[in-house]
């Protein structure tokens, strides 16, 4: 495992201990984010999902700094498992509780930046807001892994 992964896991272990402690009795509205740590991702972004009204105005969105990086895709796959993405979105992203990440249907947009946003800020139907825990670089790795699905670059593809 990479050192970044281990550091992320250490931070998460601290967060997990807090969360497990809060769960007894079901009384507290437990959150994934530990109370004392500032969010590590950008605040809710300005990446547009819908069309930009008015002619001649193009939206700008940040590009994936790890686009096409096979090492990043492999690390993204490890993060995808470690943070239980596989539990909702399927072992190789085919879906389940959450929609497939392998196909062309994107409820909230399928560009790298839009996928980043869905992971970072979460979505109404229960997608958690991982930006409260995961550093931006780790989210970009997961995005890179997702975008590699169904391409020859996909690490550990389904057989």
């Amino acid at each position, binding site marked *: 495992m990479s050192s970044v992964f281990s550091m992320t896991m250490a931070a998460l272990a601290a967060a997990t201990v807090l969360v497990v402690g809060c769960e007894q009795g079901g009384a507290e509205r437990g959150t994934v984010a530990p109370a004392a740590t500032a969010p590590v991702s950008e605040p809710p972004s300005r990446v547009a999902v819908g069309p930009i009204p008015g002619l001649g105005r193009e939206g700008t969105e940040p590009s994936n700094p790890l686009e096409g990086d096979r090492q990043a895709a492999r690390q993204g796959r490890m993060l995808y498992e470690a943070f239980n993405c596989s539990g*909702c979105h399927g*072992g190789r992203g085919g879906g389940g509780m959450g929609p*497939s990440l392998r196909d062309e249907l994107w409820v909230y947009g399928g560009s790298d930046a839009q996928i980043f946003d869905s992971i970072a800020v979460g979505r109404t139907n229960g997608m958690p807001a991982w930006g409260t825990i995961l550093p931006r670089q780790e989210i970009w790795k997961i995005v890179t892994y997702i975008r590699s699905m169904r391409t020859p670059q996909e690490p550990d593809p389904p057989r």
Partner: protein
Amino acid sequence: MRQGLRVKRGLPASIGPIALCCIALLASCERASEQGGPGEASWHEGSVPGTPPQIRLITPVPGAEWRLPAGDYANTRFSTLDQINVDNVRNLRVVTTFSTGIPRGHEGGPLIVGDTMYVVTPFPNHLIALDLAREGAPMKWQYSPRLDRHAVGVACCDVVNRGAAYADGKVIYNTLDAHTVAVDAHTGEEVWRTRVGDINIGETTTMAPLVVKDKVIVGNSGAEFGVRGWILALDLETGEEIWRAYNTGPDEDVLIGPDFRPFYEKDRRRDLGASTWAGEQWRLGGSTVWGWISYDPELDLIYYGTGNPGVWNPDVRPGDNKWSASLIARDPDTGMVRWAWQATPHDAWDYDEVMESILVDMEYGGRMRKLLIHPGRTGFVYVLDRETGELLSAEKFIPQTNWAQGYDLTSGRPVVNPRKRTSQGRIVTNICPSSTGGKEWNPSAFSPRTGLVYIPAHNTCMDYEATEVNYIAGTPYVGANVRMYQGPGGYHGELIAWDPVAARPVWSIREPHLPLYSGVLATAGDVVFYGTMDGWFRAVHARTGETLWQFRTASGIVGNPVTYLGPDGRQYVAVYSGVGGLMCSVAFPEISTDDPYAVLGVAGAMAGIKKLTRPGNVLYVFGL
């Protein structure tokens, strides 16, 4: 006409000539009032005509109305109505339809109270009242609870609801976001609403509550999220919580006290719900209650089964992991456990045991005994003495079951096949049944006239690799790569008519490609109704398995058929057509079948479903 493949294995030896001399004590079929307890006036007291003397029903069974999830407390899903019978069911036709507008899995079934039919939809769990007295059964009203949409993200197995219960002028059901609601059956106004769980840790409520005396019994879902399973009782009038019992942990949490009398000697120890786990893993110990509850009014005990022990990687939780995958008997007034028996100690396959427990007295081993018949996820039919919790028999209803050879009846424990034990870092192949089981949550029916249990069975096997996993509250806590596939034999589903005393099948009907995901209904007209995953609603002869009638509904059937008398005094049969639920969610457009690990490993086994059925959302009512 496309038919399932019928396999006949001869007539049951245990059923002698029909005892026509049984005195029938038929209750009147008049329309019952909407007040009072569940359907007293429309229930059948005493023997059902044609019941042999060695069989005795222990609760009234439904006739004119259908007021409880299973129709009755004993979970027979048997109706005394026989206007529709083996001679005329071929004339059945669609009488009316109703679209809920929500194309997700329509599990459960409607209730019929007086002239009104009540439908609970999948999320967002509307309650819709239909007027059966008017042509086309128009809507009277709709009650819409305001739900937290985040619940959708922690629902493991589609946003289903397994139905409501009617009592004391109220329709009571659970909403996905871990609340129980009671709605005035006349006006559609909310009477009370009680939060029972926390979706932020992955708790939801999908099961159909059971009303026992003045209490509403509710259980939680969420073992795939590492929640701790519980069952509780709410006051019928106010919704206030009266008692809550966990299924794991120390005795004081599990509500084990001096009345606890487990049958097996090794179970007579303190705090087994904690000591059979490593450390405090029991706090994440699953053992949820998302299936069916039965009640014996003579013994005054409720019976139910518990789910898997949380994380699917067994190495994370050494020990027997009690009381996961167990059958438990409790006092409904206090919640205290009377007995408990664990079907699968240290589960390594996700064998939840929340399936129906059918309560009936039958001649067994030469004398009348109080039986509990539980067709298990494990591929075994369990028959227990429901007074004591003694395991009387455990026989494979899925012959290719290979995780265990059988059960040692002196200890009540399975004889596990060591080659099929799963553990971290190895892929164990060809385990039968799969996690989804020899049967899933969709319930069997029992006919006192034939003495047979009608089991909607599966033939699915799997490869299972336990993996490292992190607990993060509110996210799946699974730790296994699973891929499932159809088992050997050329069929994937099978309606089995099973003789619970002789412990063998009598006849069956096989489906070539799809498991059976609907509930079953048995009637005094000797007709058994069930639906297929590709939408065929079928009536078969309860004694021979001959297909008498079928109709292709718009979508796969994953609900439970019910039958009732309309205001015109004629018999109708109702069923939902709307595919979904765990296995059938592969039919949804947002699932990709090129990932066999998707949908908790189900996707590979169900890859063909998209060609065989599409999502739908229609209630069908059939009549002669």
